[in-house]
């Protein structure tokens, strides 16, 4: 009898923690989202069902922010995956400095997002940022470029900044996966006449897919939840508004807790669904042996 209970006992501490500190709060937040709750009208709080959600979907700002978030998401994931892969390939090469390079790769991971955002702001600062200084010194441009004033420019820069922070984790996971592929697989491919590129495409890549699963999930969720970096780079401006930023503005700036909670919920559902999609599709076992 005891044996049957042990798993549940082991799971208990974690489960209790999650129930109390996560599930109960999101339930409460859901309750807030079903109410009209503007803090500047304290006497006016009342239950309004799904009206907050309907209001959000009707708001053109929401769709604008959604498109920004979507572009950031896709850009971050693509950039992280591609550059992460390249770095993993680089680190895979057996040289004396391999260890040092790996340490270098991990360092961007140690930056808190807000410090990261401020750091990149000083690279893309409209008048005296690093990019402008370098480009002017190289005579590529004569006037400083306003990197952070145009919508797509800001969005792509945000994507770059977030990806920069996510790449270490991605490259390490891919590297580990690469190094655990048995050499026989490559040897038999060689014998069969496959060149480097084909080997990579047909054998290495599919074998890496499962490990990519968790990396892409984690990166996607980070990309959707990005907040501190956007604020550091371009403040609370409408042009670069994302879902998360809008949720924050509605909640803490406009003090409409009902609407803000609803927005946060929508973000959560979107992110959760994405995660499930990844795990279902990307996460397939590949057996070549």
């Amino acid at each position: 009898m005891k044996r049957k209970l042990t798993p549940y006992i082991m799971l208990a501490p974690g489960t209790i923690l999650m129930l109390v500190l996560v599930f109960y709060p999101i339930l409460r937040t859901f309750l807030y989202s079903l109410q009209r709750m503007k803090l500047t009208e304290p006497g006016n709080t009342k239950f309004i069902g799904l009206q907050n959600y309907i209001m959000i979907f009707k708001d053109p700002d929401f769709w604008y922010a959604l498109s920004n978030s979507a572009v950031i998401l896709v850009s971050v994931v693509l950039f992280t995956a591609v550059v992460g892969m390249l770095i993993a390939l680089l680190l895979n090469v057996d040289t004396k400095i391999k260890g040092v390079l790996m340490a270098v790769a991990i360092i961007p991971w140690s930056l808190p997002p807000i410090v990261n955002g401020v750091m990149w702001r000083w690279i893309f600062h409209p008048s005296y940022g690093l990019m402008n200084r370098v480009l002017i010194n190289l005579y590529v441009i004569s006037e400083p470029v306003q990197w952070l004033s145009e919508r797509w420019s800001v969005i792509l820069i945000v994507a770059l900044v977030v990806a920069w922070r996510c790449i270490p984790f991605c490259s390490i996971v891919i590297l580990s996966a690469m190094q655990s592929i048995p050499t026989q697989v490559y040897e038999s491919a060689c014998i069969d006449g496959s060149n480097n590129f084909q080997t990579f495409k047909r054998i290495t890549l599919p074998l890496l897919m499962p490990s990519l699963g968790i990396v892409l999930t984690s990166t996607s969720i980070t990309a959707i939840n990005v907040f501190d970096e956007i604020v550091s780079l371009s403040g609370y401006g409408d042009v670069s508004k994302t879902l998360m930023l809008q949720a924050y503005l509605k909640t803490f700036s406009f003090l409409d807790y009902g609407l803000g909670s609803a927005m946060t919920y929508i973000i959560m559902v979107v992110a959760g669904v994405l995660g499930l999609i990844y795990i279902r599709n990307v996460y397939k076992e590949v057996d070549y042996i």
Partner: protein
Amino acid sequence: MRKMTRRVVSLCCCIAMAASVTACGGGTKTEQTQQDTTAGKQGEKTDAEKTGGPSVEDGEITVMVPPWAEPSQELLNSFTADTGIKVTMNIVGWDDIRNKVSIAAVGKKAPADVIEVDWSWVGEFGAADWFEPINLTEDEKADMPTVSSFQYGDNIIALPYANDFRLGYFNQEHFKKIGMDQAPENWDDMIKACKKIKADGICEYPLSFTLSATEAATTSLIWMTMSRYGDFFNSDFSVNKDNVIASLTSIDKIVKEDKLIDPASQNMKDVEVYEKITTGAASFMVGPTYFIGRINNPEYSSVVGQLSPLLIPGNGTTKTATFALPEGIGISKYSENKGAALKFVQWYTSPDIQVQLYKDQGSIPTRTEALQELIDDGIMVDGQVMVDQSQYIVSPFPGGIPSWYAEMSNTIYNSVNQMVTGSLTPEQAYEKISAKVNELNQ
């Protein structure tokens, strides 16, 4: 088994490290507290606080203010010695204070007993009923003119401690080089002068103005309209079409045709824009009063001796106009110690303490008595211009600051920003602002 030993050893190392860090941390903390007390800085208990006074429950308050409002430890000690009330300072970044107040209020709690109240929050905080009304005598009100900004309905919800309003600053050298000893007194002349400064190659972007999607763009549009054209709001709180469109159009022209404003201002924080003048990158700006202490201070300015304050230019008929952006402190309605909190608020805004705070922190006093003392004693240099400008302070908001200020400001600064980046015409920008204000005013 060798692996096992290795594992155990590493585990022991980890535990030892953890234990040492935590112990070290604890040790350093007490060390620090002692250091603090001896160095006269932030600490929890001092000898003065331990000697008598009312019971611990009554005599304890927390105060939440931004970094620049923190009084020195000596000042706090003197307060505790006089009243027996123990004060714990909770220093929080300005933006975050608002978040904390609102989050706490959802749970009907107070993040602190005494909390900072910025002028722009008065409408919201008043409507949400988060602060305890404070009573002042007529004399006191007269001595603290900015207290009117902190009135919601009939109640005063906070007392102002820092007197910020907009003042002009110009670089005398730049203007001398085009043959002017004094800066112009109205906008048309000022813009002509700036064009000449640019044309003569003295300064590429003479005018310093915030155009980014931040709060400062809103206040900039407001003082620009007020000083050059007239009221921003009509008495029924609709937006004055003629004045605001004229103002927006003129800003648009200055940015795009005359090119007097640095395009980088579209993305710079207000502080960065203000600092252009202290680095010699601008000839004229309208900025906060605390810059008086900066323009000729070698720690902040690289053009010491060249800068001077002046009244904001008018339009020929109006001499000048400005509005006040003061900061105050108030008592939270959910505080459990309102009596003690009130004592602190009164003490903090008393004339002597205000003089001391100016000397320590540079906060401009809100009591005329204190201000005059600093000017008379020669401590506040260039103070007279400031006092003169303060005679022209007007509130642009009929009937007080609205509870929907934040949402309105968000639309205004975004409209201004999108106008200068080319997505909106001045008319469209006005339409957006007007529509939003009308929507919120319902």
